[in-house]
């Protein structure tokens, strides 16, 4: 007797649909699994047998052959346990082929018949095709983000069999945990720092990369983590992308419903392979891919190794990271807003003239770590100073995250309507067409160019930022002089330390 049951398996960065064919015949009792199963997959036999017996079903004393098609593809992991068990039951006659036809079965079996969580649930569900998917309860919440698929939950094998036979319904899915708040820190909790708040708003509205430079305890990290709260909710398509990447990387999901953009804050000692991706046997996505459609916060930029910072250049340029490994080439998306914090000098006081006590050598060494192609990618560079006593204890409460986020959302909508993406993605040719400058603004830019304070590439970057500033300011057709002045002012702030010394 033959049965075929649908499932899916992850190999490398991809998930593939798998057809589990089970053939039962007379002969010496045996159970063989073919189709390049890996060690965990081969052990399915013992797990399935124990699960069947624990569920009160009979283990057939026949010759059983299980084929995991496509046979040439390596099958990894224990996620095919449930499909093998159901296939066996269908081949033996406990279930009919029609009963199992419209489903895909994904799950690991425990010896007592319970269903266990599988890794990378989201890609598996995506690969299982347009049919109902039976999943263990622990994986249902993760995979719930995938649209257009009905997810069936069952706590153990006998529940699955009962539901398939029609004796009982499917179990209720466990509820998703509470939707995470809009970022852990509210912007209103940050005291003072008017320039930095404005820069955050601009960075969120246009997707521009931001550098915050300031002495210790000036609130840089706090401000950086506020940015993710200002970004709008993810679209369904973006949610699925983010969920897929998180699933592949096997990261404990923080916002289980993946509606909010992710915030990744890698530690400076993170190795390059964990930052970019490609580690592990399955070429897992790295931090930058996990930050896709979200924010990558690099705290203490100078503590990162030079190789890590160099390696970030290409993904920043292309919006994707290409990983070439022995067996395969993988390309993970990596388009994020980068926020970095740094001190102006090793002692931290370089921002105030006359207070820095570093030697010239240590200072130039420190600045060299910051220089180079990565430093140019920051369109907004803000110098922070320590909040004064009146800021900390009195002072008007600044705008809250939700107020600013509303403005950001409006500006983003305008930008998307104009060019199909955020302003940071505008190409040089698109700038003159879609973001014209008023006469006064172009004169201001020209003055700066002549004075040597702006290069041609710098001009384009400032232009994009100016367009975002204009969008936040009611989106006039032309960029005004004030917008350009603001964009230029927010570009050059963090040379404070170098300038204060170079007098």
């Amino acid at each position, binding site marked *: 007797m033959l049965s075929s049951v649908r499932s899916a398996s992850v190999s490398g960065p991809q998930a593939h649909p798998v057809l589990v064919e089970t053939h039962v015949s007379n002969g010496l009792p045996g159970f063989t699994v073919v189709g390049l199963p890996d060690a965990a997959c081969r052990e399915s036999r013992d797990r399935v047998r124990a699960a069947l017996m624990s569920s009160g079903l009979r283990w057939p004393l026949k010759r059983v052959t299980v084929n995991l098609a496509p046979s040439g593809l390596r099958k990894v992991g224990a996620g095919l346990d449930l499909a093998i068990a159901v296939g066996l039951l269908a081949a033996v006659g406990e279930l009919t082929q029609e009963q199992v036809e419209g489903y895909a079965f994904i799950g690991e079996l425990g010896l007592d018949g319970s269903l266990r969580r599988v890794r990378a649930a989201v890609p598996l569900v995506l690969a299982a095709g347009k049919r109902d998917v039976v999943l263990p309860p622990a994986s249902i919440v993760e995979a719930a983000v995938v649209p257009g698929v009905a997810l069936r939950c069952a706590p153990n094998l006998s529940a699955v069999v009962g539901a398939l036979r029609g004796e009982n319904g499917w179990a209720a899915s466990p509820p998703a945990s509470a939707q995470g708040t809009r970022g852990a820190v509210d912007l209103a909790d940050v005291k003072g720092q008017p320039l930095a708040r404005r820069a955050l708003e601009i960075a969120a509205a246009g997707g521009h990369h931001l550098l915050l430079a300031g002495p210790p305890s000036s609130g840089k990290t706090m401000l950086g983590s506020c940015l993710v709260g200002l970004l709008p909710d993810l679209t369904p398509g973006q949610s699925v992308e983010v969920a897929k990447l998180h699933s592949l990387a096997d990261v404990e999901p923080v916002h289980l419903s993946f509606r909010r953009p992710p915030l990744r804050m890698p530690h400076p000692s993170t190795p390059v392979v964990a930052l970019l991706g490609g580690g592990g046997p399955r070429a897992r996505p790295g931090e930058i891919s996990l930050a896709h459609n979200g924010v990558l916060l690099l705290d203490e930029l100078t503590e990162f190794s030079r190789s890590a910072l160099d390696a970030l250049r290409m993904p920043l340029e292309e919006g994707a990271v290409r990983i070439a490994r022995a067996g395969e080439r993988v390309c993970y998306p990596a388009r994020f807003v980068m926020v970095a914090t740094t001190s102006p000098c090793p002692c931290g006081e370089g921002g105030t003239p006359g207070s820095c006590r570093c030697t010239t050598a240590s200072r130039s060494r420190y600045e060299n770590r910051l220089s180079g192609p990565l430093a140019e990618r920051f369109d907004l560079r803000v110098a922070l100073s320590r909040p004064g006593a009146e800021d900390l204890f009195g002072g008007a409460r600044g705008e809250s995250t939700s107020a600013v986020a509303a403005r950001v959302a409006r500006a983003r909508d305008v930008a998307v309507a104009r060019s199909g993406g955020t302003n940071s993605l505008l190409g040089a040719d698109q700038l003159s067409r879609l973001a014209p400058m008023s006469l006064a603004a172009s004169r201001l830019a020209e003055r700066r160019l002549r004075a040597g304070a702006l290069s041609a590439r710098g001009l384009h970057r400032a232009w994009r930022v100016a367009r975002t500033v204009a969008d936040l300011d009611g989106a006039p057709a032309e960029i005004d002089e004030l917008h350009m002045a603001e964009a230029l002012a927010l570009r050059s702030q963090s040379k404070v330390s170098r300038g204060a010394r170079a*007098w």
Partner: protein
Amino acid sequence: MTSAAGRDRAGDKELAASIALAELPRMTPAKLRRLVVDNGPVDSWETLASGCAPEWISRSRTGETDLLRLWSTAVRRIDPCDRLAVYRRRGAGAALWSQPSYPRTLRQDTSTSGLVFSLGTTPLAGAEPSVAVVGTRSATPYGRDVAHELGRALSAAGVVVVSGLAEGITACAQQGALSSAAAPPVIVAPGGVDVACPLSLSPLWDRVAGRGAIVSEVPLSGRPDRWRFPWRNRLVAALADVVVVVESHAGGAALAIADAAARRGRPVLAVPGSIRSSASRGSNALIADGCAPCLGPEDVLVALSLAGQSPLAPAATGASGCSGAQDGGRVPSGATNAGVGGAGGHPVAPDERTVLGALEDSPATLAAVTGRTELSIGRAALALDRLVELGLVRDGGGWWCLASPAPNDVPGTYLAGLDARAVGARTP
């Protein structure tokens, strides 16, 4: 300050011997003084060459026997006449204490070595008064401004400005002294006169070597090691008639120079600074301890005449050269009165007027300006831009402050001599 070249063969011999003695390993100013001043240099050299020990060595600590051995081997390798020829070839001068080209202020000093090397010509041997302008490496724009002003005014008044060279106050003082085409400045080097230290200020070093002089007690090619800096500081104090401390952190090297000067009975002046600024903590402490405050170049000139060293050329541009005269002798800071409408009569817009008012108290970043004036970022940035163009406000890498209306100074051009690399760091 080239030595009495070739005319006095005995003098040449003495000089050659002194130079050779100075080049012995582990030579210190105190030891060199004993060899050169207490004995004659030629005698000392011959004593060492013959392997005998000068009596003061045998009297001193153990461990000096190693020194003697070191010296006797070194003596055999060095040829004094050859060394003198090398110095002459490289254009470095040397002056012995007994020669007329020895700096006037060092004549009575018992802690210097008795032999001073130099590069370039300097009037230190003559009757011109000399003033040391010293301060911290990490200075505020105010301090740099004042140092530059003092350097310029004093040099214009015919006073030789002496200092070590480091980023910050001393670099600005040297810049100021160079910018007036009168008395040349002098840099005291921590190493040999041919070793520029710090490297980042090499252009300034070369300009001073061209217009003024570099002096040192360390022979040519001596490394500017850390343990030579205290000797350099003492030499700065010894060379000066008056010492002015512009800005100093608590415990800065400038305070050590002030100390050395006080020990020699030279007057020390200190420029007062904001009590909130850590860069003025040391200089304010000096005033609290009894030094006279320096409120402008005139105070320095008064201190010089009280010390009996009036400048030979009374300041021709005395009234206007010291821009403090506008405010009755105060160090220029309040440019608003002169500035608004004063820069060639340009009309100043209301935004710009507000920003000027905000900058009156102290330099500020853009964030502080927007905080003080309630203008939006764009308007404040535009206003600052226009004010910089008009010359009323100066930009020091993110900190804006009022530009002092010094007549010879176009704001920003005196940066030209400083490290072009640091200033030329443009935003890409």
